């Protein structure tokens, strides 16, 4: 009986000593951040306000992105590319380094441009102010906008002169960096790894098919292409190559990738086709005069 009493006493003393530390330890943890109820966006001279953006969101956006901004709108189950989850605040199209939040202008441009090959249309018909308001509102869904600042946009150096050598070097990089593993040797998005890829939500995701169009998800200019592989597409298997590719090499890669878009005329494709080698390669890839005569594009 005495041993039991001693044990209780020891446990009590131990508890008295440990609990305060435990409490102190808990007290040291910062309270979980909550999304801000009000946010602003700043795009040029425009200032967007989340209160006005909310009304627009519940007119235009909630069907896919959901009333809670988590990408679970009533239409989401029927989409093969899921709507963006604004709560996670992970965005593909950024001018900022991988892992950082995009700038307001990045989001503004995304809303304005839309995402090709997805159900997200271009909202060009809205006014600039309305788009700015929408950007402000979607920032109220995630605490990240409270605890973090947007990343610093990367510097896009001036595009060097287009040459055959640049295109060929870009092709070598395409092999060396193993871009083909996902995008395929012809850029059709059918590389050996393509069928295994998933995004951060464990949803199957298909690599970009360069032959389908000259509009990538994040824009159609060479600068947009440059930014894609120097910032990566967060939330997807497409990493940032900023640490392994020098800017001049990145431009060569851009030039080469344009030649894969052989259904869409570009200076790069024109130059590439001016060489016998390039002309033969492009001709071998193109699908012409199908039996239906309907001009099918692969």
């Amino acid at each position: 009986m005495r041993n039991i009493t001693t044990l209780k006493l020891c446990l009590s003393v131990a508890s008295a000593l440990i609990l305060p530390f435990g409490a102190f330890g808990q007290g040291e943890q910062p309270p979980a951040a909550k999304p801000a109820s009000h946010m602003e966006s700043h795009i040029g001279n425009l200032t967007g306000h989340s209160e006005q953006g909310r009304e627009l969101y519940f007119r235009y956006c909630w069907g896919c992105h959901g009333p809670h901004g988590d990408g679970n709108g009533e239409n989401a189950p029927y989409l093969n590319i899921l709507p963006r989850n604004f709560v996670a605040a992970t965005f593909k199209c950024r001018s900022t380094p991988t892992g950082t939040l995009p700038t307001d202008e990045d989001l503004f441009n995304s809303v304005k441009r839309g995402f090709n090959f997805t159900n997200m249309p271009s909202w060009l018909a809205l006014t600039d102010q309305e788009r700015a308001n929408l950007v402000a509102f979607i920032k109220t869904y995630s605490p990240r906008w409270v605890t973090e600042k947007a990343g610093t946009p990367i510097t896009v150096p001036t595009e060097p002169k287009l040459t055959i050598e640049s295109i060929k070097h870009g092709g070598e990089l395409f092999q060396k960096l193993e871009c083909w593993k996902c995008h395929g040797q012809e850029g059709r998005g059918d590389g050996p790894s393509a069928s295994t890829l998933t995004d951060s939500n464990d949803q199957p995701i298909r690599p970009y098919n360069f032959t389908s169009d000259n509009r990538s998800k994040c824009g159609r200019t060479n600068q947009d292409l440059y930014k894609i592989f120097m910032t990566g597409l967060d939330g997807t298997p497409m990493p940032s190559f900023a640490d392994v590719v020098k800017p001049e090499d990145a431009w060569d890669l851009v030039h080469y990738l344009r030649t894969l878009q052989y259904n869409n005329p570009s200076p790069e494709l024109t130059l590439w086709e001016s060489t016998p080698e390039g002309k033969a390669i492009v001709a071998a890839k193109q699908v012409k005069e199908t039996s239906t005569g309907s001009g099918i594009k692969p």
Partner: protein
Amino acid sequence: MDVRGNGVNRSRFRLGTTLFGSVALLVVLLFACDSASAIPAFARKYGMPCSSCHEAWPKLSPFGQQFKDNGYQLGNDRDAPIFQSPAYWPIALRITPNWHMERNQNTVVDGPAGSDTQVTATVTTRGFDYTGMDLLTAGTLAKNFSFLLVPSSDETGAFHFESANVRFDNLFGSTWANIKVGKFELDNLLSEKRIVTLSANGGFYQNYHFQPWLAPNQPSPTYVFGLGDNQLGIEWMGHSKNDRTRVSASLLQGTDGNPDFQAGSGGAAGRAYEGYIAASQAFEVGSLGLQRVGGFAYFGQAPTYPQYTQGGAPIFGTGIGNKPYYRAGFIGMWYFKKLDVTTMYFYGHDNVFLATGTPSNLGTDGLPEGAHAPSWNGALIETHYTWSPQLILINRYELIRMKQQTLDTNPGDLGNVDALTFGFRYYPFINTRAGFAFHNEYSIVWNRKVQISPTTGLPIDLTSSSLFFGIDFAF
């Protein structure tokens, strides 16, 4: 049917009772419905709520207008049918069960002694009813090949084709080159097919359909035309990528949209071609919204007599002796955040042969004495307060003022029109699958001096009003 020569007090009482009832019904519905949507086929195709394309359906938003101008395409390479489930069928239905009351004051009716004597009375009809049905099919056949087919029935189930057209979009890769062929609505900024009022008096734009009276009791005798009517022909339309600038020009068959070269009930159909042009420009004004101004003009011609007849009846499509008529106007759509105001000035002119129903081969000697080419001015102001995507308040006032009467003997204000409409539409839910609205509306129209009093022999006004409670749904 109530026929009362002097029922003003009872009418007012009943009107008040009905209004009170509608307000009470609204209150109940507002509280009974839980939360916050047309061609719902598009909503289903793209998974977007009706409110994306419609400020309050069927009224288009700028985004919806751009979608329409782009050939029912969002432009994200997911528009062609091959991207849809094979089970997807681009079809939607719209109909509106309703209760409505129509009241016509100064209606000439048989007197108590029978048909030998006539008196004027206020004729009121009311009860449960339903509208015609639109069967809306629209979409893309392939990328940049779109279509619209709208078999439409009247209340008896008799069908006609309200729209039937194919559109070639973005020719040569340009948003400025779009060609539409078939039967279609004119490129009216203030679309009558997307009107947000539904009653017998308020469900159309007076200015779009007005034709001058030849004399009291004698409507325009020769031809039928409505700027709001769908027309047969070919249209070129172009727009900037953001749809801020829009232009169109159409070559149209002069049959007011009727098939087989028939000109409706107006008389001889002709071989005439007509033209319509429209242009508008939108601009942003800070946080107020997107403002738009534009103009339009219709250059029509109609035959004045048939080249051939059979048993006295004209052979369709052989009308000759064409004489011109035209309509023109300016429109402004002004947005002040949730409040928007549409203003329109309208001008109309008919050739004197058309206005008097005189075959042109008779020459001016065949015209009635003191006959002139009639002309008139019109105006419209329509306001909407879009409280939310779920509730829109509507008000419209139209007026038409004759500038030149057809006959010197006519009263100066013969045919003048004043029309007032107000109401609201409440959408108890909005989703990406179907549209539903409680529609409540009152409309009153004053037609000046258009009929002859059987008792005094003098021209008197005809006043018509509608009270309408409808359940407007589309699926």
